[in-house]
């Protein structure tokens, strides 16, 4: 589904990704974990065309999509839910959702999709005419995820979906991601709440210093003592990956 091959890139002269390579299969949830500064969020920006890639290739279903701008990545079925709040604050909930389908010429189809998405997230229908800034933090995150679903994406990049959410809302968000996976959508997620995220994931990926240090089934990563050490602030000494 998605393959990164020897990606080097960063911000200006600062290189963050140092030869990053990994593959994720279709209709799966993969969680990226790693210490602060490992380059987890930067990976998303590289995939979504928001970062200068110095070398390497990104393949989506075998097609080279390296460096394509966001509009073209969206057209290729990729959506991105960044870290933090990503709403247009003074527009209504409905118009925020509508923006999720801005690249689609057929507006009747967008309206139809909005109805479907509002059925999935009834809260959005209730507050459809409210300004997005008036929603709570958790509701705003649900709005962002709902908006990212508007185009029936094949791949969703989700950065820290649990930040600022109550435990119940985190459960809801993770359940939504699992449902999407069951519907054939591929999810690549970064999550500080690593143990919870790995528990609902199919695969895990450990990033360190801009490289993939380990990639395995999520259950095996959870049981790996080196990963436990990483959660406690250490680093992965052994560079060899068990692989899949």
């Amino acid at each position, binding site marked *: 589904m998605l393959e990164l091959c020897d990606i080097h890139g960063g911000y200006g002269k600062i290189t963050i990704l140092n030869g990053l390579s990994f593959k994720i299969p279709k209709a799966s949830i993969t969680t990226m974990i790693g210490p602060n500064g490992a380059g987890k969020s930067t990976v998303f920006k590289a995939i*979504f065309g*928001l970062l200068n890639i110095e070398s390497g290739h990104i393949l989506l279903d075998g097609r080279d999509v390296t460096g394509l701008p*966001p*509009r073209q990545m*969206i*057209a290729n079925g990729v959506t*991105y839910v*960044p870290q933090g709040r*990503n*709403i*247009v*604050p*003074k*527009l209504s909930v409905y*118009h925020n959702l*509508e*923006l*999720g389908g*801005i*690249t689609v010429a057929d*507006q009747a189809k967008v309206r139809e999709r909005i109805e479907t998405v509002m059925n999935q997230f009834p809260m959005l229908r209730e507050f459809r005419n409210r300004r997005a800034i008036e929603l709570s933090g958790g509701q705003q995150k649900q709005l962002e995820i709902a*908006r990212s679903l508007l185009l029936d994406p094949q791949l969703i990049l989700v950065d820290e979906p649990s930040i600022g959410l109550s435990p119940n809302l985190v459960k809801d968000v993770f359940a939504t991601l699992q449902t999407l996976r069951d519907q054939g959508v591929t999810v690549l997620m970064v999550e500080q709440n690593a143990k919870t995220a790995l528990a609902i994931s199919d695969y895990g990926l450990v990033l360190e210093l801009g490289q993939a240090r380990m990639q395995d089934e999520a259950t095996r990563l959870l049981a790996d003592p080196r990963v436990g050490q990483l959660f406690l602030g250490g680093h992965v000494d052994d560079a060899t990956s068990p692989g899949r």
Partner: protein
Amino acid sequence: MSQFLQIMLSGLATGSIYALVAVGFTLIWQAAETVNFAQGEFVMLPAFFVLIGLNVLGYPLWISLLFGLVLSIVVLGVMFKKLVVEPILPSGGISLIIATIALGTFLKESVKEFYGAEAEPFPPMFPTDPINVFGAVISLQDILNLVISLGVVVLLTLFLNRTRTGRCMQATAQSPEVAEILGVNVKRMILYAFLINAALAALASFLITPVYLAKFSNGETLGLIAFIAAIVGGFNQIRGALAGGLLIGVLDNLTATYVTAEYRAALPLILLIVIILLRPQGLFGTSEGRSV
């Protein structure tokens, strides 16, 4: 009573033209987070484009107005963005503000050098015959200026709120990063803001120059008053710019008639000081956080 009504209507007519220019300040602020201190000269220049159409190229008035509008959109919209804003904006907002001050001086001095320093008559678009409105005598030109200016601001507001392109412009203004990840063509939306600003400035120029005559220095006062109007109303709100423009137009007339004409020029500045002290975000504006 009829005198009061006359003063109010006349003030609203002038104020609505200030509002057009003030709305331009708001659009540029939202698009590029900068203040265009050449905005006054942006209002001065289109009148000279029309005069070139009339006196040099020999076009009739309506063709000259169209010529002036198109040339304004190209020069004050596209060229301003491409040649001034885009190269300088990465260096920071302050650099761009200084550049717009320099641009204003350049435009002013260029008109003086190549067209002349004398004030030139500018033909009105509408009849100037006086009409009677509930006993108040006011020119038809003033009434139409008011109707057209308010109509354009209403249309602009409807465009921004009721069309997809307008909402994309709002998304770009409020959260450019979010707009980009959603696939909004952010660069195009910013360009639209500059084009609309240029068109508003041209319209303001065509409406106000018949009253003030065409002169290279017209932008000095106009730019300052419109800037104050935008701040008084709320720099980040179109309705604020509209309210600020109308308020200054009316207060200016009322002061000149009932208080003193000698200090009327000081009124907008006094209003500015009062607003900054009591409500820094303006009458309709909202506070914007900035991290340093």
